[in-house]
Every structure is written in structure tokens, then in C-alpha cells.
């Protein structure tokens, strides 16, 4: 192997190598950002859908996007009488079913993901309709008084800034729409739909947000999960103008959204990586052109073609790896400090560490094919052409 020669070639042209590394770093950090954000986004949507296993969500049918699983849609509006009739449907677990009122407090970064902070009004005693099997990090997950509130961890963080930077916990009070509510529970780890929720009694939410007599959706928990489709059919037969979504519907809807976004993002990612490959390739090609005499000398004194190949490929991979190493903290910095308000974690980037490694080596290898091919074709006599 001639990897030490590859390293010395990089070191010999310090400025050029540094600029190449920065070019690769820019491309790779952009790739990581897109990849990480998409990973977080996908995980979030899947988390939401999974949270609604065995449940049916009913909203008002709207002209566009009526079939989409925007679970926290605040544009949907159902009369309370309609909600009560829906809750009287046969075959449902009434204790784990409820009418809900969703009202965004802070908007989301992207469509089809929950608002950064959302108020959720639900019927006291029917908290399980929304919270399912989620556990409390502290306090309780039941609402007993009109001015009580349960916070997701993201929402608690949001209200920390409203609380002079002091952590918001049990017995803290938070201002919502001019009213002061007392925190009685903080949710444990949960998908963003729940983590960003400010959960309060339905009448309180209706009063605060001036939505008397209306709700945005109804969640029904079916007693026998095998009967979900039957219950859905009976609701559709009995009520018109409603969107009735089971977990399967939500999954289909989420998949179609994710497929479209993934296709678009894949084009962006491929373009970014192609730029990185071209940057490295140009530099390595120039390097090979400059070193034709040295390569010829190496061939003349017995270096096999594969050794020349490894030298050139090594140079390319080292440049690519170094660019990636520089890119990693930059990407993490941007995700951590630039987008933490909207995306709850940096795990999207961290979870793809092995992909990052493979990507770096892949970029390096792809960039080395043409220059390495040129290098292995250098004739030993090339070493003498300059005499």
C-alpha cells in the first residue's frame, strides 16, 4: 500500500487540500442536515401513527387535504352534539374515547407535523383517549379541576422561557390565553404530537380559545381492535361530511406524504453528494496530472498498478473522510442550535453515523475512479519524458 504517499501528497498541497476539505465539509453537512431532518420527520410521523393503534379519529371533511392525517387540525370544526352522537357509537370503549379541541399555540416548522406547541382540550376522565398508554415523568395524567393542565416535555420547555428561565414542573403555573393554569403532570418520553401538548379540560380550552360548543375532532377507541373497520363503516353510514381515519388510513396517508418528500429529498441529497464527488475528483485529477512523472517513476521501479490505484484512491478517501469529520460537528451545531425549537432532537443525525462513514468512503471512492484510472495507465516511460 502507498497510503503514506497519499497522505504526503495531501500534505504537500496544504491550501488546496484545506479548501477541498472545506468544500466536502459544506456538502456533507448539508447532506447530513437534510438526512437528519428527514429522519426525525419520518420518525415523528410514524410515532404519531403508531400512537393511534386501535383508535379512530374523526374530523370535519375539508375540500383539500381531507384525507390527510393532520391529527391536530384546528380548521376542523364539529358541533358538540355531533361529537356526542359519535361517542355513542356501538362497540367503542367510551372511557378511552373523547371529543377534542386542538388549538396551536406555536406554529410548526413543516406541514403535516404537529405545531411546536398545541393546546389540547379533552373531556376530564377520558384522558386515555388521547394519551393512550403514555407514562408520566412526574405528577398525574388526569385532570380533576378546570384550571389544571398536563404538559408534554417540549411544551414544558417552551413555557420555561415564559417562566423567567425557571424549569416548569408540578405545581408551576403557566399563562394560557389570559388564564393561569396549574401544572399537575409532565409527560414522559413521547412522540412530538404529545411532547408539545398543553392538555387541559375541554370546557377550559373552549373558553380560553373562544370555541363554545365546538370541537375539532373525536377520538374513538374500539373495544375489539378487530372491529375497527366495522365501526368505521357504521360511522360513515350514519354521518356525512366527516373524515374517519383508522390507523391504516393514517399510515397510508403518512406513507404517501413521506414517499413524496423522500423522493424530493433524495434528489437533493444525491445532488449534494455529486457536488462533493466532483470537488474531490477535480482536485485528485489535478494532483495525478501534476504527479505523472512520479507515478511513472514508481511504475518504473516496480510499483504494481494496484498500488498506484490505492495511492490515488487513498488520497481521495482521506480528503473525503476529513471533510466529513469537519462536517459532523457543523451539522450537529446547526441542528442543535438552529432548529431545536422545531425538531426535538439531533438523533436524526446521530443515528446515521454508520451511513455517514459509508457515505464518506463512497464519496472518496467514487471521486477516485477516474483519476485512479488515469494514474494506473501512466506508462513507466513517463518518468523519462522530462529528461
Amino acid at each position, binding site marked *: 500500500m*502507498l497510503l503514506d*504517499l497519499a497522505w504526503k*501528497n495531501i500534505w504537500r498541497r496544504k491550501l488546496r487540500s484545506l479548501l477541498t476539505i472545506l468544500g466536502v465539509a459544506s456538502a456533507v453537512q448539508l447532506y447530513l442536515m437534510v438526512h437528519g431532518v428527514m429522519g426525525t420527520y419520518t420518525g415523528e410521523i410514524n410515532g404519531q401513527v403508531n400512537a393511534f393503534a386501535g383508535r379512530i379519529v374523526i374530523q370535519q371533511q375539508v375540500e383539500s387535504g381531507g384525507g390527510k392525517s393532520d391529527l391536530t387540525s384546528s380548521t376542523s370544526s364539529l358541533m358538540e352534539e355531533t361529537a356526542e352522537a359519535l361517542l355513542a357509537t356501538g362497540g367503542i370503549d367510551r372511557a378511552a374515547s373523547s371529543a377534542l379541541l386542538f388549538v396551536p399555540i406555536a406554529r410548526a416548522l413543516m406541514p403535516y407535523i404537529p405545531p411546536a406547541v398545541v393546546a389540547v382540550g379533552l373531556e376530564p376522565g377520558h384522558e386515555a383517549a388521547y394519551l393512550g398508554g403514555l407514562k408520566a415523568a412526574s405528577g398525574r395524567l388526569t385532570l380533576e379541576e378546570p384550571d389544571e393542565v398536563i404538559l408534554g416535555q417540549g411544551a414544558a420547555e417552551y413555557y420555561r422561557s415564559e417562566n423567567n428561565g425557571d424549569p416548569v414542573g408540578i405545581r408551576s403555573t403557566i399563562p394560557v390565553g389570559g388564564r393561569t393554569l396549574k401544572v399537575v403532570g409532565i409527560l414522559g418520553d413521547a412522540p412530538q404530537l404529545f411532547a408539545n401538548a398543553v392538555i387541559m379540560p375541554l370546557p377550559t380550552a373552549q373558553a380560553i380559545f373562544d370555541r363554545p360548543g365546538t370541537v375539532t375532532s373525536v377520538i374513538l377507541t374500539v373495544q375489539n381492535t378487530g372491529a375497527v373497520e366495522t365501526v368505521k363503516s357504521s360511522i360513515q353510514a350514519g354521518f356525512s361530511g366527516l373524515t374517519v381515519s383508522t390507523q391504516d388510513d393514517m399510515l397510508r396517508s403518512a406513507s404517501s406524504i413521506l414517499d413524496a418528500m423522500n423522493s424530493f429529498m433524495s434528489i437533493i441529497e444525491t445532488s449534494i453528494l455529486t457536488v462533493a464527488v466532483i470537488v474531490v475528483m477535480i482536485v485528485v485529477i489535478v494532483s495525478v496530472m501534476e504527479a505523472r512523472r512520479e507515478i511513472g*517513476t*514508481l*511504475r*518504473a521501479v516496480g510499483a*504494481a498498478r494496484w498500488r498506484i490505484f490505492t495511492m490515488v484512491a487513498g488520497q481521495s478517501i482521506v480528503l473525503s473522510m476529513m471533510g466529513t469529520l469537519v462536517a459532523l460537528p457543523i451539522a450537529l451545531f446547526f441542528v442543535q442550535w438552529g432548529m431545536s425549537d422545531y425538531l426535538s432532537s439531533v438523533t436524526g443525525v446521530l443515528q446515521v453515523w454508520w451511513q455517514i462513514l459509508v457515505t464518506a468512503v463512497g464519496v472518496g471512492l467514487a471521486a477516485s475512479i477516474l483519476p485512479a484510472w488515469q494514474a494506473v495507465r501512466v506508462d513507466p516511460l513517463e518518468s523519462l519524458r*522530462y*529528461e
Partner: protein
Amino acid sequence: MNMIVETKNVTKTFGMNGIAVEAVRGIDLQVREGEFVAIVGPSGSGKSSLLHLIGAMDHPTSGEVFFRERPLSRMNDGARTDLRAREIGFIFQTFNLLPMLNVFENVEVVMRFGGLAKRERIQRTESLLKTVGLAERMRHLPNRLSGGERQRVAVARALANQPALVLADEPTGNLDSTTGTGILELLREICNSRKQTVIMVTHDFRAASYADRVLVLRDGRIRGEAGLKGVTDTHKTLNQLLELELE
């Protein structure tokens, strides 16, 4: 003594601007193991082309080159590369050291091609650099060395894999006469003490006088040959060859 290099009716034709130029024309040559042969001739006489054919760096247009009775034309690129790595050492007129490697590394790197273990590479490199008088300059880059020192590094590199054959292409061409003499004495010493074969291409008859045998090449053909081994008046013999060349 066994034959190390043999050429049979070797020709080499280059195409230059659409015109075929015959650099080597039907050369028959035999070189024995341990011999020091000088090939002299004016510029363009085909001596370097012949050296490249012998060194498995180029293919003849016709004829055959044998290395220890093995025809080079039957060898694929890998085998020819291996031959150059293990059995042939090259000394170039312009030294051809790798500029990013220091003296030690320039010598050591070719031993990797010869398949030597690291410890042996280190020991042998140090020993060779001591032999050529550069033990104190091992960590210097080539651009910090004089021409003579660079050529001594090149000699050490050529000997690194203990090749049976050392090919030297105008090894003193870029050196002053005192430094050139030092290099020629080193090549003579290689032949005497290590029993390695040296084929040297030069246009300098004074340099050729260090060889056992001198061949005069002109227009791609061997025009004269003289053995210098045991000859007391090498000056007279070389003058006769020079006259032959001027004919």
C-alpha cells in the same frame, strides 16, 4: 558465466508526426552475469531505447529480449512490474527521486514492491545509505541535496532489492566531473563486490572506461565493441572505438 540479458534481432520503431523512426535496428546483444557493460553513442543513436527494452519498460516492435532466458514478450504487465521490482534496478539521468519523500523513504519505498518485511527494509536502507555516504542525511528531502547526493540516493534505491541487473541511463549526465567520478566508482564497486550486472548508457567515453565492455551504438545499430577487462591501455582502445563512431 550465465547470460543475464540477451536480445535477438530487436527493433523498435516510433511514430513521430506520422513518420516511422527506427530507434533500434536489429540488435543482437548478450550480457553475462556480473558484467559491467557500457553502451555509448551520440544523442539519438537508440541507446536509451535499447535500455528501456532491456529493462522491461517498453516493448520491442520485433525481435525478443530475454532476461535469464525468459522472453519478456511472454510476460504480462504484472510479471514485468515484478521483474522491475525484484531483479532490475534503475538509475536515471535526472535522478527521479520522489520529492515528497525523504532520502530514507525514497530508498525504502521500492523494497515494499520487492515484498520485504519492515524490519529488513529499515536495516537494509540504513546500510545502503551508509554505503553511499548519506547516513547523516537520511531525513533530508531531495530538494535539500546536491546533484551528486541525489544520484547517490538513486544508486542506493537501485540496489535496494539487491537486483541482479542495474540499468543506468546517463548516470553522470547531470553531474560535474568529480561527482560523476564518484558515481562511476560506486557502479564499478557494485560490479566488483556484489557481482551485480551493470548496463550503463552514456555518451561519455571517459565514463565508459569504467566498464568491462564497451558497445558503440549509432543509428540504432551496434557499430563496434571492445573489451576493456585486462586491457592496460584503455585510452588507446577507446580512441579506436571513437574513430569508429566518427567514421
